[in-house]
């Protein structure tokens, strides 16, 4: 009797079936991922249980290509890594070569480079931060601040003639001096950007909706961030004050007065705020650099090392020595020292390292790029596990994963 009673009760309870998950392809070309990223998400309803990122969709074998290119031809390759801040990549590569060649770079060139690199950092952070806004539904800031990014590109154009893939500067300096127009554009930009940026900040920074949406979204602790070798704003948002500009100063960064902003939670909001603050610091650095440049002789824009630095074109056409050096440089007749160099710069996304092995040949024997995106993107599944699909989108945009840098 009792047995029958039990059976009838039990039969009313639905049998717990094995849990069914659905699988969702986020990407490769999803408009909200801003690039070619594929993530196969294992979903329980709206909750992400697991994610499998697939990368390499725009892999272009830069490390292999670099093994067959003369040193000065590698600069355009570096452009195409983090294409949101290509001048930093270019400068990083030039400085690696200058380290290998033991070239002394004049102070003025270093300050000019600082200006260019900080402009690049601002344009990189503008993209990241406005897109976070875009992804949570605040389109205004995106369109508003992009005008100022556009004007940064106009400054690049004035310096080197290109906008996105800049190929800015040369080994040993810049290809030409800043023109008067460049300075004028820079001055105007410095006048107009802070108020506009202030306005953008007031749109989002203390906006209740934005804060509710981003605080505690995709967080990572400092310990995990270090274990995953995070660097740059993403690491600093987690509370570790590691900035290559301060830790291993290059290009005279030690002479500049700026702070390294850090967050506490390592969530989307902190990453956003760290980048916001860094843009203010970059503006500060640019202003200081302009002041410093005024004290330097205004005609210097490259190192005096003709055997490594390409001479200006007008001299090549009119001067025999310059023509000889141009020829030797281009044909790879110059002796490049054997050696092994690691140089890192603070890119838009963190420690951008160049590990170069030269065997004295015309091209590198081996060139390895330490690409910050590639290294921190592997923590992405861990950061979005147990969260909503919509959180995954803004976590990715706040990490600022750039497909070009990820895939090299």
């Amino acid at each position, binding site marked *: 009797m009792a047995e029958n009673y039990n059976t009838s009760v039990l039969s009313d309870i639905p049998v717990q079936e094995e849990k069914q998950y659905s699988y969702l392809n986020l990407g490769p070309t999803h408009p909200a991922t801003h690039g070619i990223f594929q993530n196969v998400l294992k979903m329980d309803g709206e909750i992400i249980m697991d994610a499998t990122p697939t990368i390499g969709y725009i892999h272009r074998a830069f490390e292999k290509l670099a*093994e067959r290119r003369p040193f000065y031809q590698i600069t355009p390759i570096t452009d195409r890594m983090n294409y949101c801040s290509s001048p930093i990549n270019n400068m990083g590569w030039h400085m690696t070569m200058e380290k*290998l060649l033991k070239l002394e770079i004049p102070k003025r060139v270093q300050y000019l480079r600082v200006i260019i690199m900080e402009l690049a950092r601002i344009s990189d952070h503008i993209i990241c931060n406005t897109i976070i806004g875009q992804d949570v539904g605040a389109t205004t800031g995106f369109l508003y601040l992009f005008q100022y990014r556009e004007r940064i590109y106009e400054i690049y154009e004035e310096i080197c003639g290109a906008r996105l893939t800049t190929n800015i500067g040369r080994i040993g300096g810049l290809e030409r001096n800043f023109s008067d127009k460049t300075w004028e554009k820079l001055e105007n930009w410095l006048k107009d950007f802070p108020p506009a940026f202030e306005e953008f900040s007031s749109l989002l920074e203390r906006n209740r909706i934005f804060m509710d949406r981003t605080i505690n979204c995709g967080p990572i602790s400092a310990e995990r961030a270090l*274990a995953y*070798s995070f660097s740059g704003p993403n690491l600093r948002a987690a509370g570790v004050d590691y900035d290559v500009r301060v830790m291993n100063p290059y290009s005279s960064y030690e002479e500049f007065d700026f702070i390294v902003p850090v967050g506490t939670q390592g969530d989307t909001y902190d990453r956003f705020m760290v980048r916001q603050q860094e843009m203010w610091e970059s503006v500060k650095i640019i202003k200081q650099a302009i002041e410093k440049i005024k004290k330097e002789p205004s005609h210097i824009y490259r190192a005096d090392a003709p055997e490594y630095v390409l001479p200006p074109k007008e001299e090549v056409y009119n001067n025999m020595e310059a023509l000889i050096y141009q020829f030797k440089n281009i044909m790879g007749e110059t002796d490049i020292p054997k050696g092994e160099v690691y140089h890192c710069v603070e890119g838009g996304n963190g420690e951008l*390292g160049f*590990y170069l092995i030269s065997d004295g040949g*015309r091209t590198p024997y*081996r060139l390895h790029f330490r690409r910050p995106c590639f*290294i921190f993107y592997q923590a992405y599944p861990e950061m979005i596990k147990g969260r909503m699909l919509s959180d995954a989108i803004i976590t990715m945009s706040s990490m600022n994963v750039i497909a070009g840098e990820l895939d090299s």
Partner: protein
Amino acid sequence: MEQTATEDRIVSVIRENFPGEVISVESPYDFLTVNLKAGKIIEIIKFLYDKEKYQYLTTLCGIHYPENKTIQVMYQLHKLTENKRIRLKIALPEEKPTVPTLTNVFPAANWMERETYDFFGVIFEGHPNLIRILNVEEMTIFPLRKEYPLEDQTREDKNNDMFGR
């Protein structure tokens, strides 16, 4: 000078705790580089992590030397508290490059090792997911090895004496 003193200390610490493992020490461009035997590399990195606080893996990559028939694996560690960097190198035989995985010490090594496998064919034993990462899965070669030249070697219109390699 101070820099050199601590560098020597690290090397002697490694020498003391792992006798016979250090092959040579160099410092190209002021970057301490230690060439090690392949056998105990993970133990040494674990030791540096625990005892010497080298707790940041900057990068990891392979280098192919066909004339020695070796593939080197380079590990670059960073001690953030004192801003000291160290580069550890091991040489593996070209035919069967095998080394234990570092993922148990640094989760960041996961993709770096996959990349090194992808391009050099280095097998990282114990790696949780050792598959190609940037190249297509169907690929059968390891493209960054020197035997795969970038350019068509049968080209006759280009003189390598003049244009270098």
